């Protein structure tokens, strides 16, 4: 049986890669994809804690987390869509106006 620390290190690695991608990419949609990567890393950590403590509350929390991630993707993509439609900008460092 693989120990708990392996799963946690897997989660930490994937979370760090997602964090780096969120910092260094310019595309707004790729930044949202990196957010999904970070969500999945945290879900792996929750599921591994649920497995190694022999209770199901971690899995319940993963269900809630998946639903909240879906909400976040909907609202984020709607904001990006409105931004691209109104200004034609899809890069994060060109957004420097609060009004047209």
């Amino acid at each position: 049986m693989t120990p708990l620390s392996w799963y946690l290190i897997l989660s930490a690695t994937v979370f760090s890669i997602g964090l780096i991608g969120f910092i260094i990419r310019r595309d707004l949609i790729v930044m949202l994809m990196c957010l999904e990567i970070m969500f999945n890393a945290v879900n792996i950590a929750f599921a591994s804690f649920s497995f190694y403590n022999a209770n199901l509350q971690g899995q319940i929390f993963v269900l809630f987390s998946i639903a909240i991630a879906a909400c976040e993707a909907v609202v984020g993509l709607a904001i990006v869509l409105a931004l691209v439609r109104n200004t034609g900008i899809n890069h994060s460092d060109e957004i420097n106006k609060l009004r047209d």
Partner: protein
Amino acid sequence: MNPAVEHAFFIYFFVSLCILSVAVIASRNIIHGAFYLLIFLLHVAAVFLFLNAEFLMVIQIIVYVGGVLALFVFAIMVMNIKEELRHKRFVKFSTAGLATGIIFFVSLYIFLNHVKSGENVLIKSDTTSLGKLLFSYYLLPFEILSLVLLVALIGGIIIAKKTPVDREGR
């Protein structure tokens, strides 16, 4: 399952998850990034299967691959984002961001390297007990979550729709 086989599969999933997440970041074309994200999500579902969470695996595939990723691809196609070579992929401070992430990972690794777990593991996870827990102890968060989903749906529609000014062409 044989422990050696399980270790080998776990190492495969570890390496492939790292490679796929790096590929999502490093891909120049956004559609390619979305495709790598699809394979990444399927691998995460397989890791859930390792942890005796079959229901989570199914929910991951249905919600993420069938919902969120389809939403991403739909948004990319609606926005008609072309590959712009005049822009660089990374921001100006990308090395500083990389160093920040590496420092974060090293500190987490030092913290997580000596984690001890209990002896009893989840023997058999059936969806029945998960459903009983979800609809007894977690009934109020479940209902609140339904309300949150409704609010996010309405908010997404209102943010992304065309305003009347756009429709009249003024």
